[in-house]
């Protein structure tokens, strides 16, 4: 056998993926294959994952262009018009809340904010598949979970303003909510750590012979973190009753999803190496999100193990108030996104069903805005970042440990509290 001669080969070159378009270019999503609504099959929940590998490469969609809910996923939903109206209201609330808080940040009433524009269906829809006692391990862009779980907007605002009524007592960056009671695990700010924690929580429920399930949340970019892999290994090994949610909104701050995805085709396909049933769903379709979430929750409750879901969506706004997307992507890209606006799509569905109208929609918008504005006034009256009442600085030393150790007590005294 001859040893290879490296000189017989051309020099090596590194591949660095690039998005299709940059600022100044014409957005083009024609390469995104979008199946017609209602055309993707709905397998039984105990299906062999090998038989549904194709579902990680398609997009499950329910609402068509005419505003009709069609296909097997729609038929399995058993949803009433009232449920639909509640869903629409959750999404509208989140959107209006976002707009108000974004504006409050610009008025320097808070240091920072992160909005959900275009992604409202995912968290608002998903939460409706959970039961009281179940636990979400969210990222910073799932406040719809809280809204749909009935968490008070006033508590959310107090957290944003870090005022005296902030349930997190001014310790956490704005949007890092936490409510055990509402099935919402404390948001870290470090990426992906919660993904494996959700699996541990689900394992604990199974160890205890309980009936609760958990849901892990992560963004497309953070799937590159090692903890994503840790979560899939553990979830797969112990068949943990967990739903592993990947929100693919195309952008990780300024980095397009191709950098994290590499050659794997889709993020959902990551589940295949672990034997985890993996679905890809239209994240801008409230009914598709809910239908798939219910399918995955049913699997978890029947002890059939984890499900991986990729929500295909688009981050229409900036990553945060510290971000300017016009520096790295065309401004028109958001409007060119082919899956549409989740609020409009559910609104059109309700209109098509004869349960809603443009007038009622405008009226509901006005009502929600008035309600949020009223709550905001009350929250601001308590305090905003630089004005009003705040948690006592003495509180800074609390909750580091259950019982304050001597060295911390000494430092608190030194600080003058």
């Amino acid at each position, binding site marked *: 056998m001859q040893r290879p001669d490296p000189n017989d080969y051309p020099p090596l070159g590194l591949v660095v993926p690039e998005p299709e378009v940059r600022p100044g270019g014409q957005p083009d999503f024609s390469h995104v294959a979008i199946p017609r609504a209602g055309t993707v099959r709905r397998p039984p929940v105990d299906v062999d994952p090998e038989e549904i590998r194709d579902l990680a490469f398609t997009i499950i969609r329910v609402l068509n262009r005419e505003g009709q809910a069609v296909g097997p996923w729609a038929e399995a939903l058993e949803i009433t018009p009232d449920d639909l109206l509640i869903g629409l209201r959750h999404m509208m609330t989140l959107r209006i809340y976002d707009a108000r808080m974004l504006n409050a940040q610009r008025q320097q009433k808070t240091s920072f904010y992160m909005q959900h524009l275009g992604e409202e269906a995912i968290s608002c829809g998903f939460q409706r598949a959970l039961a009281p006692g179940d636990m979400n391990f969210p990222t910073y862009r799932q406040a719809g979970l809280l809204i749909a779980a009935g968490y008070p907007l006033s508590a959310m605002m107090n957290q944003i303003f870090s005022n005296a009524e902030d349930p997190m007592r001014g310790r956490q960056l704005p949007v890092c909510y936490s409510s055990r009671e509402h099935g919402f695990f404390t948001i870290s700010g470090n990426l992906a750590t919660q993904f494996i924690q959700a699996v541990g929580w689900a394992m604990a429920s199974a160890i205890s012979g309980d009936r609760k399930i958990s849901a892990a949340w992560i963004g497309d970019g953070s799937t590159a973190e090692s903890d994503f892999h840790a979560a899939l290994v553990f979830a797969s090994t112990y068949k943990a009753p967990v739903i592993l949610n990947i929100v693919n909104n195309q952008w990780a701050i300024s980095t397009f999803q191709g950098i994290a995805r590499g050659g794997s085709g889709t993020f959902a396909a990551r589940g295949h190496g672990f034997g985890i049933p993996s679905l890809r769903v239209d994240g801008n379709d409230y009914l598709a999100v809910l239908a798939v979430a219910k399918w995955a929750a049913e699997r978890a409750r029947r002890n059939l193990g984890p499900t991986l879901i990729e929500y295909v969506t688009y981050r229409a706004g900036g990553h945060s108030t510290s971000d300017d997307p016009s520096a790295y992507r065309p401004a028109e890209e958001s409007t060119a996104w082919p899956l549409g606006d989740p609020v409009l799509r559910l609104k059109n569905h309700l209109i098509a069903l004869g349960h809603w109208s443009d007038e009622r929609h405008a009226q509901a918008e006005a009502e929600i805005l008035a309600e949020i504005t009223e709550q905001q006034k009350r929250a601001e009256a308590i305090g905003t970042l630089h004005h009003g009442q705040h948690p006592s600085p003495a509180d800074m030393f609390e909750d580091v440990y259950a019982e304050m150790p001597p*060295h911390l007590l000494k430092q608190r005294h030194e600080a003058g509290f």
Partner: protein
Amino acid sequence: MARMTMIEAIRDALDVAMGADPSVVVFGEDVGYFGGVFRCTAGLQAKYGKTRCFDTPINESGIVGAGIGMAAYGLKPVVEIQFADYMYPAYDQIVSEAARLRYRSAGQFTCPMVVRMPTGGGIFGGQTHSQSPEALFTHVTGLKTVVPSNPRDAKGLLLAAIEDPDPVIFMEPKRLYNGPFDGHHDRPVTAWKSHELGEVPEGHYTVPLGKAVLRRQGRAATVLTYGTMVHVALAAVEESGVDAEVIDLRTLLPLDMETIVASVNKTGRCLVLHEATLTSGYGAELAALVQAECFWHLEAPIRRVAGWDTPYPHTHEWSYFPGPARVAEALRQLVEVA
């Protein structure tokens, strides 16, 4: 009382905890069926079933991360990192998550978890099975860090750690697993059965966290140390002829300052001793605290003896290890200062 090695004492503590509290679960690499590479969990899976004591994938971040989720649910996970040297992949989960859950959620979620890990050298483990990374934990607020030096303390401290409402890093000096070790690697190995601290009470008892203990009374100097180095210090005191007090800290954080200050104020001289590397080691914190609290009683500069600032070398293990000769020399120099 029963005669036990430190391994048996740790296993006994886990057994007592699992027997008393169904929420205690034990897991890690090779921990389940086989019972751990050091055998600390042997028999627990057979006794309590494989959902309470089980093997995990080789993923330390996963082990600790899953443990955090379980603790948040309401279980009491006692996880094993096979060697302290392997904990780095779990460091983000320990520092950013376990240590801060209570604080960042204002008490809504807590993390009553114990992370056990064999630490220290002296077994020819090379640079990846010998490290003493305790300073990387004591620097992290929200954690408690414990290092036992004998079987009796190991059992009582581990039970206290499991019952603690906050995350505890429990570092087990692996050179002490089977017997006390005073650093004389060329002498015959001694066993715990001939040592009084190898006598371990049966059933449940705790050694409180945050309490040091005086291992030897003396008048000429104070040695602050923990883990394997407690035994090295005792040997060095005998060999140097310096009548030093030896304090076994047992818990590095929270630290028992009362015991330290009383001793140093009495002796006026202080030697800080650990196996971990010197620079920015836990000894730096001890030295800073002692000079701040005991400055007017000090008759000589505080001395530190520690591992050299090199990776832990394989063949040169005994040149690296701060053995009794180095400690004795430092003690003599410490008391010679006028």
